[in-house]
């Protein structure tokens, strides 16, 4: 596997930032996750958190880093170690989304402005399989890669003050599900009855970096049925193991 030229920088008193080339690429993500797993596997007591994004790892320490040079050389030696095979399995998750205009209230406008029929927007959005790059912005908010070019749409010029939990949006080159009620500037095309952040679960987020998401269209009636099942903790998301 390709090895990248990484840059290491101290970020404040307690963190080290490692940067990959500034690109959104699956190979880069794979290298980042491998490195992250190796660091986590070392179980270094002074490390409290390792956060990955598209092209970076941020390693947060419990206290001030005393010797940055030895810390960085320690991390560099971990990068060179062989990949760990024994880590969490990745899954592809089927996420139900209702694209009815009751929920997808920007569909008509997007269709008019961009000249794409609503049916085609839904077909394009559900036809792609998205890679989870990381979680950020809100608890449980997945940053997804793989939105078809035809659906790259400008953000709304004025963000909405309140977007409901579960709303599915498109903003620029990205698509995602609002895991909590929030202000937001994305175009809303549907809504998922599934919880992306559930504190009653041992792992509050079902998906993690490296997983995949497939959006499956459902009717309003199915939406309501699943909503009830989710509320009584009866709904089980469908998933498949992925090996890639």
């Amino acid at each position, binding site marked *: 596997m390709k090895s990248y030229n990484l840059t290491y*920088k*101290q*970020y*404040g*008193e*307690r*963190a080290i*930032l490692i*940067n990959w080339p*500034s*690109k*959104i690429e699956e190979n880069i993500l794979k290298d980042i996750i491998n490195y992250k797993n190796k660091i986590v596997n070392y179980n270094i007591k002074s490390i*409290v*958190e*390792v*956060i*990955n*994004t*598209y*092209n*970076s790892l*941020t390693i*947060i320490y419990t206290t*001030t880093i005393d010797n*940055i040079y030895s810390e960085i050389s320690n991390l560099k030696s971990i990068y060179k170690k062989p990949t760990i095979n024994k880590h969490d399995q990745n899954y592809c998750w089927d996420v139900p989304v209702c694209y009815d205009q009751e929920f997808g209230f920007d569909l008509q406008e997007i269709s008019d402005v961009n000249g794409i029929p609503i049916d085609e927007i839904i077909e394009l959005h559900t036809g792609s399989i998205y890679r989870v790059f*990381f*979680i*950020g*912005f*809100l*608890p*449980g*908010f997945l*940053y997804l890669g793989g939105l078809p070019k035809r659906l790259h749409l400008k953000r709304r010029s004025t963000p909405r003050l309140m977007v409901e939990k579960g709303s599915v949006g498109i903003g620029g080159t990205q698509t995602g599900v609002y*895991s*909590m*009620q929030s202000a937001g500037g994305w175009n809303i095309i549907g809504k998922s009855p599934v919880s992306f*952040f559930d*504190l009653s679960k041992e792992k*509050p*987020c079902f998906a*993690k*970096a490296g997983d995949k998401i497939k959006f499956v269209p459902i009717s309003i009636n199915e939406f309501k049925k699943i909503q009830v099942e989710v509320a009584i903790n009866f709904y089980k998301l469908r998933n498949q193991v992925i090996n890639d």
Partner: protein
Amino acid sequence: MIKVLSPGFFTSVQDEGRFGYGKFGVPTSGAMDRYSAKLANHILSNKDNDALLEITLGRCNLLFNSQAIISISGADFSPEINNQKVRLNTSIAIHQGDILTFNKPTYGVRCYLAVKGGFQTEVVLNSRSFYEGITRQNRVKKNDELAIKSYDFSLIKSVSSVKVQPSHFKCTTIEVYTGPEYNLLNDIQKEQFSKTLFTISKENSRMGYRLQEHIENDLGSLLTSAVLPGTVQLTPSGKLIILMRDCQVTGGYPRILQLTESSINNLAQKTTGDTFTFKIVPLN
């Protein structure tokens, strides 16, 4: 039990914060001014991570339904018990039925009320720190009842008070390290950062402080990356945002500066209209 008679401008339960959940997008939270929070806990020989009440800009009234030992650190809101003035930074005995009143600020923005044994509110993801969407509430409301441990105040050993440097509240220099994208700035921008007297705008909260001044900016946005409390972001409009304890775990604006841990505490005691300059200090 403490009953909230009036919550004041913004009051919440905080401990040191929520660690290890950034991978789920969960912010750290925790006391804005960790120095003062730690001091309040130390005075009572509590643990550093014991939960306390963070009271912003005073005007808060609390009724104690049990006896307790408390300490108050941070901003001075001229606290009174049953209309009798009490001192900051010392142990105070509380009788059942006492009313603790915080008045308007004399200095500082956030004060910390510690109780012996810590507040016993709900623990979510290993922390009692309030945060919208994580804990049931994000602020203390009128008539809320906050669980505390009852303590016999005859146990108070010392009543000496700790002296805090006034500079903790009054300093006009905020010490910073250069941030990951500092080197993207040109010389004019760097000079603007080091010479400008910055003013805190009215948009300041536990999430972040927006500053009024404007820096010429042609950097645009970055690929979304991790951010930390104390990160100074330069937005496309040229305005600066200093992220605070409740900030999101990722952001897309260039991270120009990073406040030192103690400067985050200093800034937490400043509010709308306060001014300061940045002073870059070396890392290590």
